[in-house]
């Protein structure tokens, strides 16, 4: 488990009248302990099997053989075991669906027989501010079930730390949420109002839960048998508080409308909105100058409208362009390239080892491992989605390492640079790089041009095979390439 504060003593607040007094203890049985053995890929030496580890989390029964938990509890899982409260038995389970962008997963056990009679949790609404909730789970500090109480202290649109790249609706509570609580139900009036999932290291009494709109959306998304990430509007907005800016755009001083500064190529709004447009309303909800709308009485980011929809759904946009008000409908699309900025799980790292030169496609996993400091690599990473680099280069191929070999021993200073061309051809993705490095009729030399290198990397083709053999043997590399995730 990756989140979270160190354990601290929590004084339980006195039970509040709002909480149903008949808090059924048999419902505890439906809160299960999840034990996971996992394997995390190693992006530094991608041919290796990676790091083995494990962890404890919580899940709860929401239907026939359906256990809900957090994605981060069962990420990269090799083996999942489920235990009922008060029972010594461990039931093998498997991950049916996993959604890393909203940190939710659905599990099933191999044999549901012992669970048949257990009660099933129902879902409630987003809990109101200041209302009291119970967090049930198996946090550190003991083997048995633990229950804590807290008050809803904030409702916000914020980052889900599991993927590092996604933001959704989030509810902050002041109950202690500790490692192991992850995936546990947060209950109010006998109904689940959220899933406990993350904490905050630098603050006390801040636990975060995934509210039910997100959970319901996940459950609806998987009805068709697969999970298709969130759709995205693909718009960057800029607040229009500044009176001078409002004047420049001929807007009245009414705090309405937000400026569109960037439209992601191939995204939902591509071809519909343009930088410089002023967005006034989304699906009939007035957008204020900070890009917020009022939804069910709460002030939330306008993206929340898109959040609750699916790819293929329509969204209506009212905006001002060149002084004229326009209204149009857009069909929501997912934006797969945006996964560049999200940590990937359950993926085998892709790579090519070529005469000791290691090529890997750039993603956040690799970036987190290699800490590239080259400005070109950083620019390609930052501009990949906003500037649409992914259209020309689905992969940014990086020369990450050079394993010492007589053929390459004098090549230095090019590690950590991105590949531009191989034998004069711009490299599109890793597969393309592989094809360029393994042509039917090899050229005399392979000439690899890198962004920001002071010289090309040159390898005589007739010495590659021998070098590959040496490298494979010396560094114990089972496979010289892996092109599939």
């Amino acid at each position, binding site marked *: 488990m990756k989140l979270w504060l160190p354990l601290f003593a929590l004084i339980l607040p006195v039970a509040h009248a709002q909480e149903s007094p008949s808090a059924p203890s048999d419902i505890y049985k439906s809160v299960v302990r999840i034990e996971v053995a996992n394997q995390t890929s190693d992006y530094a030496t991608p041919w290796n099997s990676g790091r083995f580890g494990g962890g404890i989390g919580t899940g709860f029964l929401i239907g026939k053989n359906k256990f809900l938990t957090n994605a981060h509890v069962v990420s990269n899982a090799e083996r999942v075991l489920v235990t009922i409260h008060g029972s010594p038995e461990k039931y093998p389970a498997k991950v049916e669906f996993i959604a890393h962008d909203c940190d939710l997963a659905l599990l099933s056990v191999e044999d549901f027989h012992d669970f048949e009679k257990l009660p099933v949790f129902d879902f409630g609404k987003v809990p109101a501010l200041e209302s009291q909730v119970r967090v049930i789970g198996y946090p550190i500090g003991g083997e048995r079930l633990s229950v804590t109480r807290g008050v809803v202290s904030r409702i916000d649109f914020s980052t889900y730390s599991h993927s590092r790249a996604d933001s959704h609706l989030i509810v902050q509570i002041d109950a202690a949420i500790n490692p192991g609580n992850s995936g546990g139900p947060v209950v109010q009036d006998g109904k689940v109002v959220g899933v406990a999932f993350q904490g905050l290291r630098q603050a006390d009494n801040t636990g975060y839960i995934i509210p039910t709109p997100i959970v319901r959306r996940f459950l609806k998304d998987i009805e068709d048998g697969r999970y298709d990430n969130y759709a995205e509007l693909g718009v960057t907005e800029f607040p229009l508080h500044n009176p001078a800016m409002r004047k420049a755009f001929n807007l009245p001083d009414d705090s309405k409308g937000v400026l569109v500064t960037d439209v992601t190529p191939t995204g939902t709004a591509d071809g519909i909105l343009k930088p410089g447009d002023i967005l006034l309303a989304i699906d009939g909800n007035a957008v204020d100058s900070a890009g917020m709308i009022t939804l069910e009485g709460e002030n939330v980011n306008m993206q929340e409208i898109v959040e609750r929809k699916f790819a293929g759904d329509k969204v209506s946009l009212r905006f001002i362009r060149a002084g004229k008000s326009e209204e149009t409908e857009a069909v929501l699309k997912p934006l797969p390239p945006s996964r560049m900025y999200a940590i990937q799980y359950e993926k085998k790292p892709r790579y090519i080892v070529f005469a000791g030169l290691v090529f890997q496609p750039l993603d956040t996993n690799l970036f987190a491992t290699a800490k590239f400091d080259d400005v070109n690599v950083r620019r390609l990473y930052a501009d990949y989605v906003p500037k649409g680099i992914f259209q020309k280069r689905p992969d940014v191929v990086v020369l990450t390492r050079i394993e010492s070999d007589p053929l390459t021993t*004098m090549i230095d200073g090019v590690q950590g640079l991105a590949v531009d061309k191989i034998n004069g051809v711009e490299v599109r993705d890793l597969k393309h790089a592989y094809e360029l490095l393994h042509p039917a009729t090899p050229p005399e*030399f392979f000439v690899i041009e890198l962004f920001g290198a*002071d*010289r*090309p990397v*040159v390898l005589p083709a007739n*010495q590659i095979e021998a070098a590959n053999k040496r490298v494979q043997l010396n560094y114990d590399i089972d496979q010289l390439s892996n092109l599939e995730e």
Partner: protein
Amino acid sequence: MKRLLLLLPLLALPSCDSPGRATAAEPVIQSPPAPPAVAVTAPLELTRSVVRINSTRQTWNDNQPWEKNPPNQRRALGPVVGPNLVLTTGELVGDATYLEFESTDGTRLTPAKVIAVDFEANLALLGPADDTAGAKFFEGMKPFEMDGSPKIGDPLDILQVEDNGVPLLTVGALQGVDVVSNFLEGQYFLTFQVKASMQSAASSFSLPVLSKGKLAGLLASYNSKDQLSDVIATELVKRFLESAKTGHYAGFPGLGLETTRTEDPSLRQWLKLGEDQGGIYVSGVRKGGSAQLAGVKKGDVVLAVDDHPIDRRGYYAHPVYGNLFWSHLIRGEKNVGDTITLKLLRGGQPLSLDVKLVRQEESDNLVPAYTFGHAPRYLVKGGLIFQELTKPLLESFGDE
């Protein structure tokens, strides 16, 4: 920093003749005969050839470009190199708001001005701000003569003057000669590395370095841990003075080339470089630079400059100093307007290009690396601050 009196009585160091060493044969290598790193009192006459320079320096605050930072003061000892002319480092006079000569005995003072400065080579020539007052100040002064080029292993003396006016010579040896930068990053010039154990005396910036009583260089920095000094080499000082004394300082020329080594055998094979050849690969050609104007292209290999072959690491054989980085052939030996011949290999074919050397001023660069003496340019409009991008501005954000 001013008037730091740290006159530790130096112990006479046992000049490394341990008992076992006594029987050892004469070393064959021409290593410096480990001079006793001892400061000796120099002839008082030397004080007639040096003056103290007091420099008050005030830099601009790049974060609030309409302001200057608090001033600070530095003190240096400069050799007199001509009638009413004093040599010091460029570093000392960069952003100086007030310069002043002071006689070593502290009896005379006169304001000074910069006649010529080269921040890249880290040299500056100063004269008195007022001619009549200056003539009086320099009365009885005796300019240094310049020495020929010292050789590796030659003893060199570093001259300091204590607060009481007594000159102090630290005997060191010329340990190595290299083309490095001693002040601004990326500005490589011929530099002597002198090994000597110095002590703190009254002036700490820019000290004259002497060879047999003649001026052989100017100390630019001292590393007390390694006891190594970077000394601006004789040739460079000579060439700077020649040009500076004319009143129209021309500066040192540049080729405008970025190069990289060709040690990698595969790269050499591809470039069609023979085993007996050296050569450095041109990785970039600066627009408007000497090399670009003469037609040098990225991907060329420089084999020789005039008749000096360049090896695969970029060194050539200097008749006196041994292997030196090739940039010295241009910056250290040529003047603006001179023509050199570059022997190149382009696409495997030899090519000879005559290159007329020009100089590109740093201030013409889009992002200047230094901006001494100039206030940062800025514009405040409606509370927004626009600034010209310069290296000092970038550095004000920290190391990252």
